[in-house]
C-alpha cells in the first residue's frame, strides 16, 4: 500500500525533474548555437597584442560569421587555433592573405628583414607587439581553416569599451 503511494509520488517528481532538465538542455543548446555560429565572448590575455589588447586580460566579443563566409581580411584581429598546440587559441592580427608576399622583422634574429610568400589556403598572423609575440614569424603561415572567429568589440575593462584600435 505504502509502496504504491511512494511510487506514484516518485513518478510525479521524476516527471517534473525531466521537464526542468529538458528546459535547461534546450537553453544550453541555443546558447551553444549562438556561441558557435554568431558571437561569443572570450577572455584574452598576454603581452603579444600590446598596445591594442591589455596584458592582464580583456573580454572581447568574437563573431564567427565572417570566417565562414571568407570575409576575413588583412588587418583583422582573429582568434585562431594554435598550430603547435591544438588545445590553445591565440589572438593575433592577420598581416597577409594567401598569395601575399610578407616582409617581416624579428628582433630576436637581428636587424635583417625577411620575406615570405603565403601559400594557398594559408594566412600570416602577427602579434602587434613584435618583441613579445610567438607567431607566423616563428611557426610559418597557418591554414585558414584554423581561424575560429574575428574580434570586433571589447567589453571589459569598461574604460576600453569599443572596437580595439588599429
Amino acid at each position, binding site marked *: 500500500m505504502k509502496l504504491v503511494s511512494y511510487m506514484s509520488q516518485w513518478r510525479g517528481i521524476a516527471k517534473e525533474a525531466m521537464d526542468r532538465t529538458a528546459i535547461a538542455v*534546450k537553453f544550453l543548446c541555443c546558447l551553444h548555437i549562438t556561441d*558557435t555560429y554568431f558571437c561569443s565572448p572570450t577572455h584574452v590575455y598576454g603581452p603579444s597584442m600590446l598596445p591594442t589588447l591589455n596584458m592582464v586580460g580583456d573580454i572581447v566579443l568574437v563573431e564567427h560569421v565572417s570566417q565562414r563566409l571568407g570575409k576575413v581580411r588583412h588587418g583583422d584581429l582573429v582568434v585562431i587555433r594554435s598550430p*603547435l*598546440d591544438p588545445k590553445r587559441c591565440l589572438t593575433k592580427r592577420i598581416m597577409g592573405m594567401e598569395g601575399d608576399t610578407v616582409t617581416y622583422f624579428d628582433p630576436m634574429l637581428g636587424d635583417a628583414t625577411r620575406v615570405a610568400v603565403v601559400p594557398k589556403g594559408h594566412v600570416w598572423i602577427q602579434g602587434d607587439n613584435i618583441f613579445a609575440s610567438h607567431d607566423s614569424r616563428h611557426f610559418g603561415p*597557418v*591554414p*585558414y*581553416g*584554423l581561424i575560429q572567429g574575428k574580434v570586433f568589440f571589447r567589453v571589459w575593462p569598461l574604460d576600453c569599451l569599443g572596437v580595439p584600435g588599429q
Partner: protein
Amino acid sequence: MGFRNLGLLGSFAKEGLEKAFSLGKFFCFLHVTDTYLVTFVVTSGPSMLPTIDLIPTMFLGERISTRFGKVTRGDIVIIRSPQNPRKLIAKRLAGMEDDTVTYISNPDEPDKQETIVVPKGHVWIQGDNAYKSNDSRNFGAVPYGLIQHRLFWRVWPIKGFGPFWKH
C-alpha cells in the same frame, strides 16, 4: 469584422512562432550532437582505395576522440584541407607529432625515400592510394586543429555496413 480577422491572424502567427521555436530547438539539439558526438559523413574519390571505394560512401564520424586527443596512427579522419579551407578530405593518419615518417614522394620511383620529423602539434596524413592522393607528401604536415571527425562505422553501401576501425 476587421478586428476578428486580426484576432485570427494573431493566433495563426502565435502558432507559427511556436512551431518555429520547436523546430529551432530540434535543430539546436541536432547540431550539438553533430558537433560534439557523432555525425554522418559522405566520402567520394579514389584517394583511399582499396579501403574506401570510389563511389560516394556514407560513414559515421565521431568527434569525441579528436577533442580529447585520442586519435592515433592508423585512424582514418576527416580533416579540413590546408589548401582550401572549404574542403574536407578523408585520409589516414600516418604519423603523429614527433614521429619520424619515411615516405616515397613519387610512387613511380620507389627507391627515392624521404624522411621527415612531424613537428609538434601537427600530424602527417596519407591516402591509401599512393598514386592518386594529394596529401602530406604534397603539402607537408598539417596542424592537429584541422582534424574534424574520426570515421568509425560504415553505413552505406549496405553490403559494407559495419565497424570501420583497425583497417
